[in-house]
């Protein structure tokens, strides 16, 4: 039997603050164990948390990036459980009054995914198990790293919707400077809650929670695996168990982590050490004003104002720096389409080939725009424009000068062209004859030969015109 999956997400994102959320230790990735630890984040007796206001602002920005309401009143709670990577034996989080509520993002196909809440919390440390020595060691560097948790409603019905949503969240948070969204480093972590039900049913099945998904690809594969696994259980007359499962990338399967029977009662209660976070309407407005244009907004501008195809617009906006580069180029020369073609074509190709980033290229957005203009106004051919980009990519330089030095400037007078074309037609008399007899396909071949014969400054438009005349 085929089933309908029902999926909801919990996404943890590390905030890009300089310091941790409740102390002044640096907030960084990596480094040797227990080097970014102080009495506060290691939970020494008598210490108290100190709320990082930067974390509050970033959480609010995450709210704006996802169409949430940013609440004027939010507060912290304690989530109590014992684990050696949690020095205070409670996690400070927002349970009763989260900072953001009621948001949404539209995924491909136009479907709206509702976001229940975004709250601020602290990360735990890490346990390192040394099987050889038979000991477990605690590294508290990550303790107190500021996180937001984005909780969606169970609105997803396919892996593709989930993947699009996660991609959009990652892009938007990066744009807003909230999170660097590096899934492989764990700065954006997705937990998938998934159940299945017969198509047409209204009643959700028992769900499993899948953890340890560190790429958009893994999310898709884990969901497919889980749909398969749960379907087989139901088809065999069994029952899905509510449990937490871990996705294994190498085996491409999920295995139970802990079942609900062992689940904790977290005994939440209001955190008495941190007064409620009060944001006035002016505070909230001031944070909203700091919001940059988000990728979906940019994409819309590119299609509506610049007339770019939707696919191109979304490719351009996938990375903020890439899109910033495009915006700057487009601002210097209004050759929107040509600049886009060069960026998505030659520039992307070269970046991929060299494994480098748009922020490292040797030419400026204005120089790229100039190249596009040269191609657009017929000074150089489109093919030459690509070559100019390639040269600038390698060594930098002014596009017009490169065009001149390399003889890319197209001939604009037809004098002398006749002679060359006559020679080409003579050398390819056979093909010319066949074309005249109706083999239209051969025009391209003859055209190619003519361009080759004219060299770098070949002007395809003029050649075509001359050929057409002579082959009539």
């Amino acid at each position, binding site marked *: 039997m085929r089933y309908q999956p029902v999926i909801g997400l919990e996404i943890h994102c590390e905030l890009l603050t300089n310091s941790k959320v409740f102390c002044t230790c640096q907030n960084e990735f990596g480094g040797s164990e227990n080097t970014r630890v102080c009495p506060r984040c290691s939970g020494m*007796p*008598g210490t108290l948390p100190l709320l990082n206001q930067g974390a509050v602002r970033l959480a609010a920005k995450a709210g704006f990036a996802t169409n949430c309401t940013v609440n004027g009143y939010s507060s912290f709670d*304690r989530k109590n459980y014992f684990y*050696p990577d949690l020095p*205070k034996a409670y996690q400070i989080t927002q349970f009763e009054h989260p900072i953001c509520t009621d948001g949404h993002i539209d995924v491909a196909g136009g479907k709206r995914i509702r976001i229940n809440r975004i709250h601020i919390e602290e990360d735990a440390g890490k346990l390192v198990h040394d099987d050889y020595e038979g000991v477990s060691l605690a590294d508290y560097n990550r303790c107190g790293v500021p996180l937001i948790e984005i909780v969606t409603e169970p609105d997803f019905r396919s892996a593709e919707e989930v993947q699009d949503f996660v991609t959009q969240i990652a892009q938007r948070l990066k744009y807003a400077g909230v999170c660097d969204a590096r899934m492989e480093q764990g700065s954006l972590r997705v937990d998938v809650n998934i159940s299945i039900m017969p198509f047409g049913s209204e009643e959700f099945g028992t769900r499993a929670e899948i953890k340890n998904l560190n790429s958009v690809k893994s999310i898709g594969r884990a969901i497919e695996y889980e749909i398969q696994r749960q379907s087989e259980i139901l088809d065999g007359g069994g029952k899905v168990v509510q449990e937490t499962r871990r996705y294994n990338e190498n085996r491409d399967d999920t295995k139970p982590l802990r079942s609900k029977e062992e689940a904790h009662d977290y005994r939440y209660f209001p955190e008495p050490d941190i007064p409620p976070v009060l944001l006035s309407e002016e505070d909230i407005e001031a944070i909203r004003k700091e919001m940059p244009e988000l990728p979906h907004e940019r994409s819309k501008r590119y299609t509506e104002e610049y007339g770019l195809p939707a696919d191109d617009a979304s490719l351009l906006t996938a990375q903020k720096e890439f899109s910033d580069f495009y915006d700057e180029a487009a601002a210097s020369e209004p050759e929107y389409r040509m600049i886009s073609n060069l960026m998505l074509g030659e520039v992307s190709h070269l970046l991929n080939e060299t494994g480098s980033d748009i922020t490292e290229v040797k030419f400026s957005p204005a120089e790229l725009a100039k190249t596009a203009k040269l191609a657009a106004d017929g000074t150089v051919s489109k093919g030459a424009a690509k070559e100019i980009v390639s040269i600038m990519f390698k060594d930098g330089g002014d596009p017009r000068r490169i065009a001149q030095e390399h003889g890319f400037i197209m001939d604009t007078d037809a004098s002398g062209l006749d002679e060359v074309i006559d020679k080409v037609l003579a050398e390819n008399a056979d093909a010319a004859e066949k074309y005249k007899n109706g083999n239209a396909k051969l025009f391209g071949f003859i055209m190619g030969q003519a361009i080759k014969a004219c060299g770098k400054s070949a002007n395809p438009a003029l050649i075509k015109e001359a050929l057409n005349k002579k082959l009539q």
Partner: protein
Amino acid sequence: MDLCELRKKLDGGDIGAVELTKEYLDRIKRFDGEINSYITVCEAEAIAQAEAAQQVIDKGGSKPMTGIPLSVKDNICTNGVRTTCASRMLEDHIPIYDASAVSRLKNENFVMLGKTNMDEFAMGGSSQTSYFGGPKNPYNTGYVTGGSSGGAAASVAAGLCAAALGSDTGGSVRQPSAFCGVTGLKPTYGTVSRWGLIAFASSLDQIGVCALSAADAGYVLNSICGRDCNDATTSPIPSGGYTSAVGSDISGIRIGVPKEFLDGSTDEVKAAVLEAAEYYRSLGCTVKECSLPSLEYAVSAYYLISSAEAASNLSRFDGIKYGHRSGLGEDYNELIKSSRSEGFGREVKRRIMLGNYALCSGYYDAYYNNARRIRTQIRKEYADIFSECDVILTPTAPSPAYRIGVQENDPVKMYQADICTVTVNIAGLPAISTTCGYSAEGMPIGMSLIGRAFDEKTIIAVCDRFERDHERRECVL
């Protein structure tokens, strides 16, 4: 001699800071074997601090607390000096930082004589739950000191320090001060930073002062109060000047006496408090009966809130990072279990169980949430009283100090004894306790004056006036 006078004598060279400290250290050696008010005495450190203080005094740069020898309750962190909370769990715990209150005193070159005995993790009203054995009442060593700051109050009463820092979660400064015949001040919540105070119940805890007089308590509070960026719950309002109204005319002050507080008190206590009310009336104060109807729920609400917070606050003591670590346990769960089983005493375990129970998902609404509602109600009832009164007069405890060993096995009776003090913490108000009489057995009886939030000045002045006209009996050691 009060602290103001001591200051003058130190600055005038009549008394040397080192001599003074040595005198106290000497008394501690002579008497504290019996009283057991100190867990740790810092002899060498105290003398070194006194020497440093003398240098400051000699240069004419003294501040109010320079060279003044205090004791500090053993749940207040002191850099390099072990801070045990009177628990096996922290028997060898040496903090790497000073509590804010202590560092403010250090900035004024005070002298710390040592760390005082208390109920384990401040949970109790007799100080008998101390892992190091309970302190004894200087008025009669067969009697309890009260608690949890029993060591602090006893150290002041016995003349083993000039004044003491304690902490008050539900009466822990005021009640032992009453039992030991000294003055105990619990400031408004948010007046003294809790940074470095090892938390019992974070929303109720406040560092306070035990001293020989209301003026002395205010004098010490001046040096430790104020906003602290390390404690987000400190208020920007407190700014010292707590003794500025001392000696002013208090006639016209309106004193409310809530009837519910007297109902459960012994006849001796009731008589002493009513006599104090008469005294104030004779000075021209208005004394009127008032009411705090929710008092009957206060003890339950207090124990639910404080135990819930304590259960969470004490969870960090897992034997992994610091504190007692058991030799038993194959995995981390077992290790945490056995470390906590061995490290905590009975009363602490009882509160942890109670607190966790109150927070469990099935009971949260019935217990914890109801307690929160009562808290809101008590605050409102206090606000009502303060719309017609300036100060509220109550007994500090329903009875004077009792014999050691009497109430130990009846926790409910012990808890009920906190009825006179807990509402002040629940409402976050300031209160001061002083001696208003003596029982037939010769034990001090305490009364409390409760003030409006951040109005310590008034209760100190009103308390001071009473103390001037009523002589304190010295205890004979």
